[in-house]
Every structure is written in C-alpha cells, then in structure tokens.
C-alpha cells in the first residue's frame, strides 16, 4: 500500500509550479517509492490472496503483470502530467473543478484515509498483542466486530499513541519510516526464506497452490487488476502529482517500480508464505486465516514483531496526519490539532473493528473506485482538452467555484460502480478502470453540453489554449 501526499500545508509551492531549483534527482524517488510501498498492510495482503484461493501461477505472473501496468501508469500518465504542470493534485483540481468541489473530494479522501489508518492500527495490534498471550483474542479474516475488551483497549491505546504523535507532527515518524524501509523489506524476505525452510521446499508453485476443491475467489485477472489498481487513487487518481511534480524528468516515474516489485511483489509473496505454513503446519483454515503478529513472531521472533509494529505505525501516522489536513481543508478555521484529533479518533474506532483490515482487498478497490476517477478529469484536461475544443482549467477560466460537469462525471460512474459491487458481488478492484474511463468520457460530454448551453464553445472562447 501506498500513502498519498497532501499538498495542503508547509509552503511547498502549493499554489505555484515547482521551480527548477526545488526539483529533485531520481534517487529521492526510488528510495521514497521503495519505502512507501513496504507497509504494515503488506502483511495482510499476501495472506489474503492465499485465503482467496489464488493459485501460484496467478500470484507469480499476475502480480508481475499487474505491477508492471501500475508502473507504466505512473510513468506515462502521472509523471508526464506532474512534470509538465508541476502542481499539486489539489491545486490542479481546484483549477478544473473549482474550490468547493475540492472540498468534497477532501471529505472522501479524509474519511478513506481514516479507514486505511484504522487497518494499520489493527495490524499493529496483532503484533503488540502477542506478548499479552491468551488475554488478547486475535481476530480472523471472517471477523468484522471487535473480539473482546482487551482487543478494544489495545487498539485504542495504539490509536491514541499514533494520534498523539501525529498531532505533534510526524517528522520523527517519517524519519523512522525512512530508516526502517530497507530493514523491513529484508524482514519480509527473511519471513519468506524461513517459511521455505520450515515447509521443506523451495518450490513456490507447489507450496502456494491451493488444495484441490478449495474455493477460488480470485483468478489471474483478479490479481492483475488488484496489483494494478490497489494504488489507483495514487496513479490513475493523480494523487502522486503532489510528489512527482518535484521530479526533474518524467522518466523518474519508473521509480515506482521499486515500490511495486519490492513491496507489492517480493513482500506480498513472502507474506503469503506465512499463511501457507500455518495452514499446513497448524491446520489453520485459510478462509479464517491467522494474524500477521503471531505468524511473523513464529517465523523470525521479536524482530518480526518489531517489524509489524513499526510498519503499521510508520504508515498509519502520516495517514492520520494527512486525514487531519484533508479535514482542515474543509474547515479552514479548524486548527490542525483539532482536525488531527478528529481524524485520529475516527481511525482508532475504525481500527477496533477488524472489518477494514480483514476486507483489505475489497477496501483498497473501493478506495480506488471512489477517488481515482477524478484523475481522468485531469488526464482529459491535459491530453485531450485542446484537441476536443474544451477549455483547459475550466473553473479557473470561467471563474466558477463548483464545476457541475466534473461532479456529474465523477458521481455517476462511481454510483453505478458501487451499485454493481453491492448487487453483483464483483470484486471492487475490477471497478476503478471502467469508472475512470467513464468519468473521463462523461466529463468531455458534460463540458461540451455546458459550453453549448452557455455558448462557450471554443469558437467563442478565444482564450482557450
């Protein structure tokens, strides 16, 4: 999983293009992507693939293809726009959609951030709870409600500590995350190697394949789409404009390969092996699964517990902080402290309920389905608007604060996508792409209709570029 960078504060060229002197070299991006995509949630995703009955071929080659597609999206969409315009997502959206629609986007962004941070609280609790032994009942993949009073107290203590640190500013945590990244990746690899040793085989294909007759909830294309779109809000949704605007060249978009092929390939497969071992050795029902904390402790000891706790903590903290910024963006009079405490309280409550962490595959799909389509509006504005005779930066050009065309183009596909998800039980990570394409097409259609009604076509709008 990855984190999004808010362009909300800090005087970092939030409302102007990043100047030449502030641009960064490629190594900064390779390091950042490698660390941001080795998070606590990776410990959940690998085992969830096993629980969903993924075959070894699907995992090994599906993840390869899906991650490659994600890298190509970063390189040829996000990085191209980011280095051409050098603006944050928020400011870019404001120029197209108007200030008030960005507030609505912030609301969804902030809420989804809180759920994501809540999942990380849950994952951390599975590690912190290990020394407490039997007094903590660890949840299973099927559980959505808290497992007991001690579990609730544990999650609340972790959530409160994370919120406290986020209120103080997350510089220290960001630094620990930066330092921990290479070590965490090696702990993932160590878990995988130890599991191969304990399983007595180095044949991944033989080990990961589910037994005959096991229910299969995900196949090759499901894994491809999951790997491609688990960060849809960041690449297709253009959140990473805020980061890649600092890149000297669009080719720095290739740096996302570090995150995809280390965090979302090596780490996921290693984490999957943990559950494979527990299924074979301890007879754990793969549908119910086992929690990362006990599995990692069994594999590599206290260093593993440290890794799960640090991975959860270092990714949850910036997420709470950014959720606070998103809420603050909606209510500018609210102090950052108040906004962060609200976000932290929300995420703590979400963390107490294991639902988000246990349904993480679904959640990240929904996250992308809701937020990514907005990125299609930016893509249309950047690549197609001039060719189609549409005004670029529509809201800014026409002095409006709420671009109805964007709202409709965003809301209609998302509403239909969510309805299909609810009624047809389609995996949520299959939805971001169709919703994204539909949003782009509807934006073109509605903008043309609006222009026609207002007589603002290209011919009457000489300022269009």
């Amino acid at each position: 999983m990855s984190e999004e960078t808010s362009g909300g504060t800090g005087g970092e060229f939030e409302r102007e293009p990043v100047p030449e002197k502030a641009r960064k070299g490629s190594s900064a991006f390779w390091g950042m992507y490698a660390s941001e995509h080795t998070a606590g949630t990776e410990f959940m995703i690998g085992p969830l693939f096993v629980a969903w009955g993924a075959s070894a071929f699907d995992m090994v080659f599906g993840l390869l293809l899906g991650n490659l597609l994600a890298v190509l999206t970063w390189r040829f969409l996000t990085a191209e726009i980011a280095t051409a315009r050098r603006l944050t997502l928020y400011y870019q959206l404001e120029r197209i959609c108007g200030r008030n629609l960005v507030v609505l986007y912030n609301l969804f962004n902030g809420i989804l951030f809180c759920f994501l941070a809540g999942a990380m609280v849950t994952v951390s609790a599975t590690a912190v709870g290990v020394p407490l032994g039997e007094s903590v009942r660890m949840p299973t993949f099927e559980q959505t409600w808290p497992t007991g009073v001690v579990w609730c107290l544990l999650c609340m203590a972790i959530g409160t500590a994370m919120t406290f640190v986020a209120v103080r500013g997350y510089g220290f945590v960001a630094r620990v995350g930066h330092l921990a990244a290479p070590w965490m990746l090696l702990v993932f690899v160590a878990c995988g190697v130890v599991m191969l040793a304990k399983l007595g085989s180095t044949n991944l294909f033989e080990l990961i394949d589910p037994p005959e007759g096991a229910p299969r909830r995900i196949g090759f294309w499901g894994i491809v789409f999951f790997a491609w779109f688990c960060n849809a809000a960041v690449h297709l949704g253009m959140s990473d404009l805020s980061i890649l605007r600092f890149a000297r060249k669009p080719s720095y978009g290739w740096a996302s390969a570090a995150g995809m092929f280390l965090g979302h390939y090596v780490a996921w497969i290693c984490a999957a092996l943990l559950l494979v071992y527990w299924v074979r050795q301890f007879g754990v029902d793969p549908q119910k699964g086992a929690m990362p904390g006990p599995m990692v402790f069994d594999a590599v000891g206290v260093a593993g517990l440290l890794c799960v706790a640090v991975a959860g903590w270092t990714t949850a903290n910036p997420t709470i902080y950014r959720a606070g910024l998103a809420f603050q963006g909606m209510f500018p009079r609210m102090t950052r402290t108040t906004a962060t405490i609200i976000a932290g309280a929300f995420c703590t409550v979400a963390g107490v309920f294991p639902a988000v962490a246990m349904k993480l595959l679904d959640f990240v799909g929904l996250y992308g389905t809701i937020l990514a389509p907005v990125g299609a509006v930016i893509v249309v504005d950047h690549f197609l608007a001039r060719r189609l005779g549409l005004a670029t930066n529509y809201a800014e050009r026409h002095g409006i604060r709420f671009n109805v065309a964007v709202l409709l183009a965003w809301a209609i596909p998302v509403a239909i996508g969510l309805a299909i998800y609810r009624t047809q039980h389609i995996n949520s990570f299959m939805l971001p792409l169709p919703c994204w394409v539909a949003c782009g097409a509807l934006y073109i259609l509605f903008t043309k209709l609006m222009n026609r009604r207002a007589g603002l076509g290209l011919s009457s709008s000489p300022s269009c570029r």
Partner: protein
Amino acid sequence: MKTLAKILAPLALAATVVPPLLFLFKAMGEGPMKATMLGAAVVWFAFSPHWMKGGSQ
C-alpha cells in the same frame, strides 16, 4: 561514529537476511537465527541514521 556506522549498518542488514538463509540450508538453528535478527534490528536502528542519506535529518 560515521565510519563505524558505514561498517555496522550494512552489516546489520546482512545479519537480517543471512541467518534465515543459513537456517534454510540447516547451517543455523532457529533460536540463534531469531536472536541474531533481533540484534541486527537494534544495530540497524542505532547506526543507520548516521549511514543512510537523509537519515539524521
């Protein structure tokens, strides 16, 4: 300190991943492997800030 970190931090990374490999090839027991990895974690967090680019900032 920086010179020491240049030696110990990469060694700590090696000590995180080499013991599991030795365990895989049955050249190390499970207990020593876990203990070495814990020691490597402590050494890594102690010395990496002085070794990694941007680590001390």
